[in-house]
């Protein structure tokens, strides 16, 4: 009886969404907004090869600011609602091979993360993905060496300084350039090089550092409330 009710609700939802499916006949050309972004003179104004990055960082940069704020709030709530308590845990020792391999892998993973967020304007990638990869290096460290003291102060400082620099760069764009989060405050450079696209690599690097530090803090909070069972 209850299941029938649920099926009716889901079917109603499906009917509600069905026009989206029916009217869709496969796009043949870009929408107006996207073709505005893809025109040559507009691309050269931003000079970023990856148009998604251009949309995320400059055109819709305020959304990114809100997103980073939401992530920061989530991290703060998690840190607030998890009560830390020190327990003595009876962990099995890690295998020696895994320890050695993670010693070799951690710097390489960090390098890959830095590559991903520095090349956000040339390749798929950017601050959020690079930050996630940096956080995965931290989580590998926590897994392999659980008794190394985790310096959460360092991560908190990194996070707040990166956030301040991000907002400051955006405001400088409003002061010198044409608007908030304008990327033309640095010389634009030639199209398709690493040092091009004005302030986009710098902004995305700080976004990456901030996201990486936030995610590392979240994961460390989760790690620190584990207990034996």
């Amino acid at each position, binding site marked *: 009886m209850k299941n029938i009710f649920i099926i009716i609700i889901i079917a109603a939802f499906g009917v509600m969404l069905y026009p989206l499916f029916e009217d869709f006949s496969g796009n043949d050309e870009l929408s107006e907004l996207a073709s505005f972004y893809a025109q040559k003179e507009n691309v050269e104004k931003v000079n970023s090869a990856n148009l998604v990055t251009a949309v995320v960082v400059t055109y819709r940069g305020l959304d990114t600011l809100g997103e980073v704020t939401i992530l920061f709030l989530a991290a703060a709530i998690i840190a607030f609602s998890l009560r830390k308590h*020190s327990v003595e845990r009876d962990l099995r020792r890690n295998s020696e091979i895994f320890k050695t391999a993670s010693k070799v892998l951690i710097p390489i993973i960090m390098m890959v993360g830095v590559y991903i967020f520095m090349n956000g304007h040339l390749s798929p990638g950017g601050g959020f993905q690079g930050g996630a990869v940096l956080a995965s290096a931290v989580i590998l460290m926590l897994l392999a060496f659980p008794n190394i003291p985790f310096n959460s102060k360092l991560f908190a400082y990194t996070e707040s300084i990166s956030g301040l620099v991000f907002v400051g760069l955006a405001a400088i764009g409003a002061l010198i350039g044409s608007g908030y989060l304008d990327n033309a405050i640095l010389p634009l450079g030639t199209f398709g090089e690493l040092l091009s696209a004005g302030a986009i690599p710098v902004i995305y690097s700080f976004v990456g550092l901030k996201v990486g530090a936030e995610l590392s803090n979240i994961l460390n909070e989760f790690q620190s409330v*584990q207990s034996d069972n």
Partner: protein
Amino acid sequence: MELFGAIITLLGAIFLLIASIGLVRMPDVYNRLQVGTKATTLGTILSLIGLAIVIPGWSGKLILLIIFVMMTNPVSSHVLARAAYYIKLPYTSRTVVDKLKVSDKVLNVEMEKRYGLESKTLKVK
């Protein structure tokens, strides 16, 4: 030359197929891990090498991928095998010898004597 690279890629794909067949056929966890690790590693490496022959301009990232797969794949299978051993998953009935079980008890006692409590109990926070 491009054709040669493509054939190497096909060979790698066939090794991946063998890995999945072996995964279905083998009788217990350890043998499945054996088949899984070896055949998938060689399959992936051969596919990537074949692609590097087809397009020589891409070889930088492909070499990095190969090194990465060769580094991580044996380690993850080693960790899985260790976990499977410690949660005492059963062997197949055709297993002939288990040396680890014989020396496990002795070695554990030795470890405790040698390293004291800190080897077994890690203080976290």
